[in-house]
C-alpha cells in the first residue's frame, strides 16, 4: 500500500520547515492548555489519541518514514513521545477534575478524607510494585527479542556519517546548534537547564498545588514547564530524529532523505543588516564598533528587561516582591534565556538572522 500523494504532499509541505513545525506545535500546546478541560475528557482525548495512533500506523506505509522510524535506536523515541503524550493527558485529566472540585470549594481528590487516611504498605504498594516490575521486565524482554541492538561499522575517524547525530536525548541541544554557537547550545543551555531545575523549589513561592494535580492554581509554573519540557526538549528531540536528515537539512516526515538537498545559505549577522543593508557602508574593522548594536541589544534584553518587567508588568512586580532582588534576578535571567531561545529561532526563520553579536575573533557569538 502506498500513502495517497495529496496526504504526504500536504504533510511534507506543512512540516517541511522547522519554523512552521515549531510554531504550529507551540500554538498547539497553548491551545491545549487553554482548553485542557474539554480536551482531556476521555470522549475527546480518546478519538484524538486514536487518530494520532492511526496516523502513526499509516505512516509506516511510507518507505522513508518506515526506514527512519524502525531504526532500532529510534524506536525508544517513538515510545518516549507516546508515553509523554499519554502521561501529559493523565496529569491534565486529573488537573481538570481537581480544578472542578476546587471551583466547587471541595478539596482536591488527593486530599479527600479517604485518601489522606493512611494504609498499610503491605500488601497494596508492595504488590502493585511487584506486578509493575514483572510486567515491565516482560516488556523489556520482548522488546529485546524483537529488536536487535544496532551495530554499525567499526569506529572510523576518517568517515563521518551524514547526518551524524548525538544520542537521541541530546538531540534538542544539537538542534540548538543550528541557532546558537556551541558554547551556548552545548554548554550554557544545558547548564542553565540544570540550574533552572535546581532553583525551581526556591523561586516557586506558590504554596498551592503541593502534592496534588492542579492547573488552575499554578498556571504560570506549569505553562513554563510544559513549554520547556514538551516543546523545547521532547519536540526538538523528535525533530532532530525524524525531520533532520543528511547535512542536518530539514525534511518532511515522508520526504526521501536526499543527500544532495540544498538550502540557500543566506544567513546574516545583525551587524551586516545594519551596516550593509541599512546604512550601506562597509563593515567597521574594529569588532567592538561593529558589534556594538548587538551588544547593546543583548545587554538591554538581560539588564533592562528585568527591571522593566518588574516595574510595569503586574505579575512580575508580584514576583519581585515575593522573591527579592537576587532570587528575582536569577529567575528572570533563566526565564529570559528560555524566551531568548524562541526569539532567536523566530529571528532566524523570519529574517535569516545568524548572530546578534558575532565576534568570531574570540569565539564569542550570540
Amino acid at each position, binding site marked *: 500500500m502506498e500513502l495517497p500523494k495529496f496526504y504526504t504532499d500536504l504533510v511534507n509541505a506543512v512540516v517541511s520547515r522547522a519554523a512552521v513545525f515549531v510554531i504550529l506545535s507551540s500554538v498547539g500546546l497553548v491551545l491545549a492548555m487553554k482548553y485542557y478541560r474539554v480536551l482531556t475528557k476521555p470522549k475527546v482525548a480518546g478519538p484524538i489519541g486514536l487518530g494520532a495512533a492511526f496516523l502513526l500506523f499509516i505512516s509506516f506505509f511510507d518507505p522513508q518514514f518506515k526506514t527512519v522510524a524502525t531504526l532500532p*535506536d529510534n524506536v*525508544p523515541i517513538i515510545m*518516549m513521545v507516546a*508515553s*509523554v503524550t499519554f502521561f*501529559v493527558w*493523565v*496529569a491534565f485529566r486529573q488537573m481538570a477534575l481537581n480544578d472542578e472540585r476546587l471551583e466547587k470549594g471541595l*478539596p482536591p*481528590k488527593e*486530599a479527600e478524607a479517604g*485518601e*489522606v*487516611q*493512611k*494504609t*498499610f*504498605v*503491605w*500488601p497494596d504498594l*508492595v504488590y*502493585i*510494585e511487584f506486578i*509493575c516490575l514483572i510486567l*515491565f*521486565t516482560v516488556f*523489556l*524482554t520482548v*522488546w*529485546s*527479542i524483537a529488536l536487535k541492538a544496532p*551495530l554499525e561499522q*567499526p*569506529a*572510523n*575517524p576518517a568517515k563521518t556519517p551524514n547526518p*551524524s*547525530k*548525538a*544520542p537521541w*536525548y*541530546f538531540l534538542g*541541544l544539537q538542534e540548538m546548534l543550528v541557532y546558537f554557537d*556551541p558554547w551556548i547550545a552545548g*554548554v550554557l543551555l544545558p547548564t542553565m537547564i*540544570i540550574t533552572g*531545575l535546581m532553583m525551581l*523549589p*526556591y523561586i516557586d513561592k506558590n504554596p*498551592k*498545588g*503541593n*502534592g*496534588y*494535580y492542579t492547573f488552575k492554581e*499554578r498556571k504560570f*509554573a506549569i505553562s513554563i514547564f510544559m513549554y520547556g*519540557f514538551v516543546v523545547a526538549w521532547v519536540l526538538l528531540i523528535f525533530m532532530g530524529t525524524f525531520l533532520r536528515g543528511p547535512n542536518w537539512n530539514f525534511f518532511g516526515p515522508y520526504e526521501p532523505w536526499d543527500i544532495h538537498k540544498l538550502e540557500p545559505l543566506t544567513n546574516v549577522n545583525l551587524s551586516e543588516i545594519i551596516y550593509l543593508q541599512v546604512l550601506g557602508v562597509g563593515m567597521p574593522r574594529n569588532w567592538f564598533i561593529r558589534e556594538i548594536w548587538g551588544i547593546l541589544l543583548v545587554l538591554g534584553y538581560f539588564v533592562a528587561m528585568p527591571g522593566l518587567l518588574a516595574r510595569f508588568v503586574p505579575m512580575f512586580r508580584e514576583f519581585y516582591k515575593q522573591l527579592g532582588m537576587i532570587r528575582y534576578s536569577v529567575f528572570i535571567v533563566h526565564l529570559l534565556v528560555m524566551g531568548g531561545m524562541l526569539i532567536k529561532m523566530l529571528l532566524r526563520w523570519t529574517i535569516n538572522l545568524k548572530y546578534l553579536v558575532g565576534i568570531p575573533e*574570540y569565539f*564569542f557569538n550570540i
Partner: protein
Amino acid sequence: MAEVKAPEPPASSAPEPGKRKGSLLEQLWNGQIWTSIFRHGMPDTPRNRTLAIMSNVFLHLHPPKIRRSGIRMKYTWCMGGLTFFLFLVETLTGVLLMFYYRPTAEFAYADIVSLREDIPLGIMREIHRWGAHAMVITVWLHMMRVFLTGSYKPPREFNWNVGVILLVLTLLLSFTGYLLPWDQLAMWAVTVGTNMARATPVVGHEGPGASLLKLGDISLVHAGSDVRYALLGGRFVAPAALLRFYVLHCVAFPLAAATLMAVHFWRVRKDGGVSGPM
C-alpha cells in the same frame, strides 16, 4: 513477598512458634530455620504487616503505612520505582556484559560482534541498551510527575535537587555507555556530544575567552589542554576515550548514582513519604 503467595494456614490452629505440630509445611514455617529468617507471622494482622515491612531490608525502604493517594498508580505512575528497577537491571546485565567485553580498540568492536553472533545470552546487550533508553524515559516522566504534582515544594526542595542530579547522572551513564560498542554510531554520537565541550567558555579551546588566557603569546587553552581533552584523554575520540568512558560508565557514575539514590530514597521517607496534599 513470598508470604503473599503462601497458602493460608488453617485458621483453626493458628501456629505458634516453637510448636512442632501439624503438616510438614507447618513444621517448616514453625521451624527454626524459617523463623530465623522471617521474624513475623503471616502478614494478615496490622502488627505482622508492619513487621513484614520493617524487618525486611529491601522492603523497609517503605514506611509501614502511607497515605492512600501515594499508592494510587494514577497519582504516582510508578515511574520512580521503575527507574530504580531499571538501574538494577542495568547493573545486573552490565556485570554480565563485563565478562565478555574488553574496553580496548582491538577488542571492543569484535567483542560486541561476538555478543551479537554467538555468545550465550547475548540478548543481555539488547536488554542493557533498551533498558538504558527506557531508564532515560522513565526518569523524565518521573520528573514530570513530581513537577506537575508540585512535589518539589517545601519540605522536598532538597530531594528535588538530588533528583535533578540523578537525572543528569542517568543521562551521563547512558552517554558514556553509548561509546562502548566502538562502532560508527557510538563514535560519532560521542564526537558530536563532546564537540560542544570545545566551546566551553574559557576552558574550551574554541570557547569564548579561551584566547584571552595566554602567557606571552603561548596559548594556555588549546586542543591539547582544554576540558574536552580532559574528558576524552585525547584530542579526539580515540582508544583513550574508550577506556575513560568505560571506567566512568562502569565505576564512577554507578557509584555516584547509587549513593545519591540512597539519599534520594532516604529523604523521601524523611520528608514525609510520597507526596500528597499538605
